[in-house]
């Protein structure tokens, strides 16, 4: 995945989406929503859990400096190393220097959005280090040379036939189009790599400040392989991953798995505090934690956009989003997709690059309703739209002069009732040549943006005259 797209053109991207992508994505989202509803229904106090989750995450973010320092202190006390990265480039350089120092030739990676965000694989490959994704979905996506289309099931846009062809070509074998046998092939191939790897790289689902513990949830076991077998473990995590204490996890782990995959808990949850404690113990000899800012501290500045950082990356907002369900993940142009992508990308990359995304929503609000930590997604989308349209403390406006001019004229018309009524009358007049049978099937720009998809009802502002007639009738009777 390109760590720094130059410009995300959402409309153009959506026009390149295949029907098969949409069908596959929707199959996944429907399945996830169904199983999620089942397990959430079994939790009597789900709303109480959401509220607690929101409050705990907000507390952590509101005291982030304190918890980051505590995290650093505890990791160091546990024998680990903490690194701070302001940017993607700094984070890549930190990981590269650790790899060089250990003369690493092969890296095995657990699924991590943060490392996708910083484009780590490209950097490692460019330095002559093989970096292998080991989550089955990521392994496939890496082999295909594309990006993930869904945060939880990255390769959901590919059919088993396509994956079989891919495996056959890239692994020089005859792979059958059978999910179970394809998974078995990946198991066999990757086992050798896990054993041979010098360095394991993971992300983090949570960082527990009180003890300096990294928490990672997985289902396949590849995350455990990456953090158990290689002699060095490097974790790359956004500074937003911090939670105060283990008790916080009693709430957050319950919310995460249910919201993500509809499981009560994932198959594996690892709690890792520093490296192994003695040579007699198994596990990595060295543990490094890279704390990544990359634009996050900027989002903290506003009390509303700050809440973006509450996200626990479950993907439920993608599953429920009608827009995501019609376009899939690639249309969002970067690692994060769906409603959360529309919040994160413009804040981490800037509106100039990702300013399209806050508008890629019908503001239906389903994302906010399903979010397990009650992130006010629609409100933040509105704030980011405002940033694009008229600018705010973080960025100046980037909207077109035409749009700004239109808004100004619109406001002038709508605050002058006589001008508004005049406009109503004018609209009724100018529409005449376009009228067909009570409808306006084709209008000139910019209204063609509407009529290209469906006709517009005719302008028919007649209520005011109806009202005055009605009033005089009432008076007479």
């Amino acid at each position, binding site marked *: 995945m390109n760590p720094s797209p130059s410009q995300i053109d959402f409309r153009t991207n959506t026009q390149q989406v295949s029907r098969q992508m949409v069908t*596959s994505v929707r*199959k996944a989202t429907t399945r996830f929503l169904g199983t999620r509803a089942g397990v959430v229904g079994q939790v009597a106090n789900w709303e109480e859990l959401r509220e*607690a989750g929101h*409050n705990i995450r907000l*507390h952590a973010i*509101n*005291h*982030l*400096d*304190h918890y980051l320092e505590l995290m650093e202190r505890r990791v160091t006390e*546990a024998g680990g190393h903490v*690194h*701070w990265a*302001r940017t993607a480039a700094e984070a890549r350089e*930190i990981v590269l220097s650790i790899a060089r120092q250990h003369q690493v030739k092969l890296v095995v990676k657990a699924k991590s959005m943060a490392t996708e965000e910083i484009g780590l694989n490209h950097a490692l490959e460019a330095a002559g280090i093989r970096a292998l994704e*080991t*989550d*089955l979905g990521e392994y*496939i996506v890496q082999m295909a040379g594309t990006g993930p289309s869904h945060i939880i*099931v*990255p*390769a*959901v846009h590919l*059919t*088993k036939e396509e994956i079989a062809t891919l495996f056959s070509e890239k692994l020089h074998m005859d792979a059958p189009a059978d*999910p*179970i046998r394809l*998974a078995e092939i990946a198991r066999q191939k*990757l086992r050798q790599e896990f*054993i041979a790897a010098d360095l394991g790289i993971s992300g983090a689902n949570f960082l527990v400040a009180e003890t300096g*513990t990294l928490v990672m949830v997985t*289902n*396949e*076991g*590849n995350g*455990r*392989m990456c953090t*158990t077998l290689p002699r060095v473990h490097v974790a790359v995590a956004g*500074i937003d991953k911090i939670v*105060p204490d*283990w008790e*916080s*996890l*009693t709430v957050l*782990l*319950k919310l995460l798995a249910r919201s993500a*995959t509809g499981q*009560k808990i*994932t*198959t*594996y*949850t690892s*709690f890792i*505090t520093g490296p192994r404690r003695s040579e*007699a*113990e198994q*596990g990595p000899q060295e543990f490094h934690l890279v704390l990544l*800012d990359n634009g996050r*501290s900027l989002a*903290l500045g506003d009390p509303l956009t700050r809440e973006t950082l509450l996200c626990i990356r479950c993907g439920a907002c993608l599953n429920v989003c009608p827009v995501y369900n019609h376009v899939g993940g690639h249309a969002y142009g970067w690692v994060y997709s769906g409603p959360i992508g529309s919040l994160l990308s413009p804040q981490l990359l800037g509106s100039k690059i990702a300013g399209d995304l806050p508008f890629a929503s019908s503001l239906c609000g389903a994302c906010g309703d399903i979010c397990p930590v009650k992130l006010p997604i629609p409100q933040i989308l509105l704030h980011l739209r405002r940033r694009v349209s008229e600018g705010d403390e973080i960025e100046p406006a980037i909207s077109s002069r035409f749009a700004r001019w239109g808004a100004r004229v619109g406001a002038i018309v709508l605050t002058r009732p006589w001008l508004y009524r005049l406009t109503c009358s004018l609209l009724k007049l100018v529409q005449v040549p376009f009228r067909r049978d009570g409808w306006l099937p084709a209008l000139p720009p910019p209204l063609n943006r509407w009529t290209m998809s469906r006709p517009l009802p005719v302008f028919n502002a007649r209520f005011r005259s109806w009202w005055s007639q009605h009033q005089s009738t009432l008076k007479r009777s």
Partner: protein
Amino acid sequence: MGDSRETILGNVRGALGRAPGAPVSSRPPLVAARVPGSRDAEIDRLLSEISALTGVARRVPAGQMDSALQELVHSQSVRKATLWSTSRLEQLGLVSRLGSLGVEIVSPDAGAAALADVDLGITEADFALPETGTLGLFSSPTQPRQVSLVPRIHLAIVHPSALRADLHEVFAEAKQRHYMVFVTGPSRTADIELTVTIGVHGPKVLHAWVVD
């Protein structure tokens, strides 16, 4: 690097309007802990949750250990096994019992390549959570991490004293430890066309035996 640390912390503090060392309010409240059922009910729940995840979960009374092992060894064609050396596992005499079934015992420190060729890894659950069918395993020189991960089959011995009502109890004890893994069923994925596939990287088979 020191610069980055100071810059990030400075930016975070600036954005939050906090001075270095500013006070921290207490963490917001949690949700009440689960109330456990009777011991038998808890064991039943544990077994049913693990079974629902395609794990093989059962009670194994002391007198039936040999037959249970024999059944496992034969049905899964176990040739090689490796295991933890906790005192309870040693008391169960697993090494000699497996030996008499013709199973070769491999050292857990033989290396990942050797363990990849081992059929069975035996551990002892430090915690068991009936609500989700979760087993908690620590790490120490006698509790090597690879045993529950690399072999094809993972057998976890669960003593009823490992039962905990929920995460609250487990975390209160576990936060002192530097490593723990929760295991809930065998390794799984649904990454190809959402087809649930058991055993992609971790063990393909999970046995949990509740032993008194």
